[in-house]
C-alpha cells in the first residue's frame, strides 16, 4: 500500500491548528467576560464586614421618601446649610426695623432658573405663607431637607437617575448604608447650571 508522503505533515498541521484555535479561545470560553460574571451575580452583597469600619457620614442624614433598588437610602440635610434658617425668624407678622432688615435680607439672589420666556419666581418653589417650607405645584408643603421632591417635579428624569445612582453621587463610601448628596449640595437652586471656570490643573503630553 502506498502512503501519502504528506499525511504525517498534514496531521501535524491539523493538530497545531487545533491547539492554536483552542488556545486563543481560552479567555472568552472560560469566563465569558465581565458581563457574564456580573449577570450571574444575583445574590445580595453582604457588606457587613465593611460596614463595621464605616462611620456614618454625615452624622444626621435624612431618610429619603423614595426607595432605590436596594431599599432605603439617605441624603444630606439641607436646612443646616441655609444661612439664617429659620426663615420665619424674619418672615413673620412682627415688625422689623428697616436698617436691620436691609442688613440681613437676601436681595443679592439672582434667579436664573427655568425657560427664558417663562422664568421661575420666588413663590414657584417657596411657600408664601410658611416661609420655612417649600411648596409643590399641587400645593403640598415640603421640608427643605426633602427638596429633591421639588426638583423632581420638572426634572423627573434626573430624579429617577438620582434615585437609581446614575445622577449625583454617594458621600465618601461605596459600601454600607447608601447616603447620597442632595440636589442642592451641587446645584445652586437659584441658578442650577454649573458655571464656567478654569480647570484645577493641566496635563503634559504623554510622549514628546
Amino acid at each position, binding site marked *: 500500500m502506498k502512503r501519502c508522503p504528506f499525511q504525517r505533515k498534514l496531521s501535524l498541521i491539523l493538530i497545531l491548528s487545533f491547539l492554536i484555535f483552542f488556545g486563543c479561545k481560552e479567555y472568552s470560553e472560560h469566563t465569558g467576560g465581565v458581563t457574564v460574571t456580573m449577570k450571574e451575580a*444575583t445574590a445580595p452583597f453582604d457588606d457587613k464586614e465593611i460596614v463595621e469600619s464605616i462611620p456614618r457620614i454625615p452624622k444626621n442624614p435624612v431618610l429619603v421618601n423614595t426607595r432605590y433598588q436596594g431599599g432605603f437610602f439617605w441624603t444630606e440635610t439641607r436646612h443646616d446649610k441655609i444661612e439664617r434658617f429659620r426663615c420665619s425668624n424674619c418672615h413673620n407678622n412682627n415688625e422689623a426695623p428697616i436698617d436691620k432688615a436691609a442688613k440681613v435680607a437676601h436681595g443679592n439672589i439672582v434667579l436664573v432658573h427655568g425657560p427664558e420666556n417663562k422664568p421661575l419666581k420666588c413663590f414657584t418653589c417657596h411657600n408664601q405663607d410658611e416661609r420655612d417650607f417649600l411648596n409643590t405645584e399641587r400645593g403640598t408643603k415640603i421640608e427643605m431637607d426633602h427638596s429633591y421632591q421639588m426638583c423632581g417635579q420638572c426634572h423627573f428624569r434626573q430624579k429617577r437617575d438620582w434615585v437609581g*445612582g446614575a445622577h449625583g453621587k454617594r458621600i465618601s463610601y461605596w459600601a454600607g448604608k447608601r447616603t447620597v448628596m442632595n440636589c442642592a449640595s451641587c446645584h445652586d437652586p437659584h441658578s442650577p447650571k454649573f458655571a464656567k471656570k478654569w480647570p484645577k*490643573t*493641566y*496635563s503634559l503630553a*504623554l510622549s514628546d
Partner: protein
Amino acid sequence: MDSRENKKDLIQKRNTHQDEKLCGRREFLKGAVKAAALGGSMMMTGCGTSLTGSKEEFVLEWKEYFKGNYRLMTQEERDETVRRMERLAKLKMGADVKISSRGPRKQVLYGYAFNISRCKGYMDCVAACVKENNLDRKSKTQYIRIFEKEHGNMNVTSGNGKYFHEVPAENHFYMGVQCFHCENAPCIKACPIKATWREPDGIVVVDYNWCIGCRYCMAACPYWGRRFNWNKPEVPLKDLTRKQHYLGNRMRTKGVMEKCTFCVQRTREGKMPACAEACPTGSRVFGNLLDPKSEIRYVLKNKKVFRMKEDLGTDPKYWYFMD
C-alpha cells in the same frame, strides 16, 4: 637565517600572547572581585543611594532587597515587609506613614462608569488623584487624562488632552481616560516576570519591588494606562498621603512602572476612589459589579453604555455612559 629568525619571532609572539592571556585572566579576576564587592555594597545600600545610612537602615535595606514577590509572601512576611517599609520611610524621609497590606474583600469586583454628557472638564479628579497617590510632582505624572472632544466626535484616538482654558468650552465634551482594569489585561500577559497581576477583586496592580522596568506592559496597553518613573518620584513632605497600601500609593522608586489602582488603599476600606470623591459634577460612578443593588449595576442596566476599544477583547471594567 630567515627560518631561524622566523622561529624566534614565532616564539616571541607566542610568549607575548601567553603573557597577554595571563595578564588578561588576572585582570579579569581582579576586576570581577572588585565588581562583586561594589555590586554587593550597592545592593546593600539600595543601588548606592545612601552610602552613609545608619546601621539599622542598612539592615532593613538588606532585608528588603531579598524579599520575595508579594503574591508568594505569607501574611506574616507581608506584615514584616510593611513594618520595614514604614520604619524606612521614617528613617529616610522622617514621615510617619501607615502602609496596609489588606487583601481583597469577598464577593467584590470593582467597576467604574464615566458620564461623558455630564463631565465639564474641571479636572478636580486629576488633582485629587495626584495628591492621593503620591504621584511625582517633578515630571507631573498623572494617572487620569481628560480629553476635550468636539460634539459628535466618537473617535477614541483623537481629542485634546492638553487643554487649559475656561471650561466647559462651547460645543465640546470631556472624556476621562485612566487604567480600565481589564479582565483580560494585555499588560499582565506582557510582563516577563509576573510583577503585575489582577487581584481577585478585579484591580490590576504592580509589585513595585518586583518590577524590573522593562516597560513591556506600557507598550502592551492599548489605552496608555501605565506610567513609568523616569526619575526618582518627588513629593513634598507636607503633601505626602500617609495612609498607604503596599500595592497602591506607597512611594515608588526610579525605574519602576506604576498605574491607577482604583485607589486600592481607599476602596478596600469601603471608600470611593479619590477621583470619584473629588468630582464636582457626579460624572464618576464607582461600585461593586457583583452587588445587584449597586449604582454601577443600575447604570449598566439603564443607560447607554460603551467601553473603549471593546473590539480588542480586553474586557475593561470601565464604562462610558450618557444621559
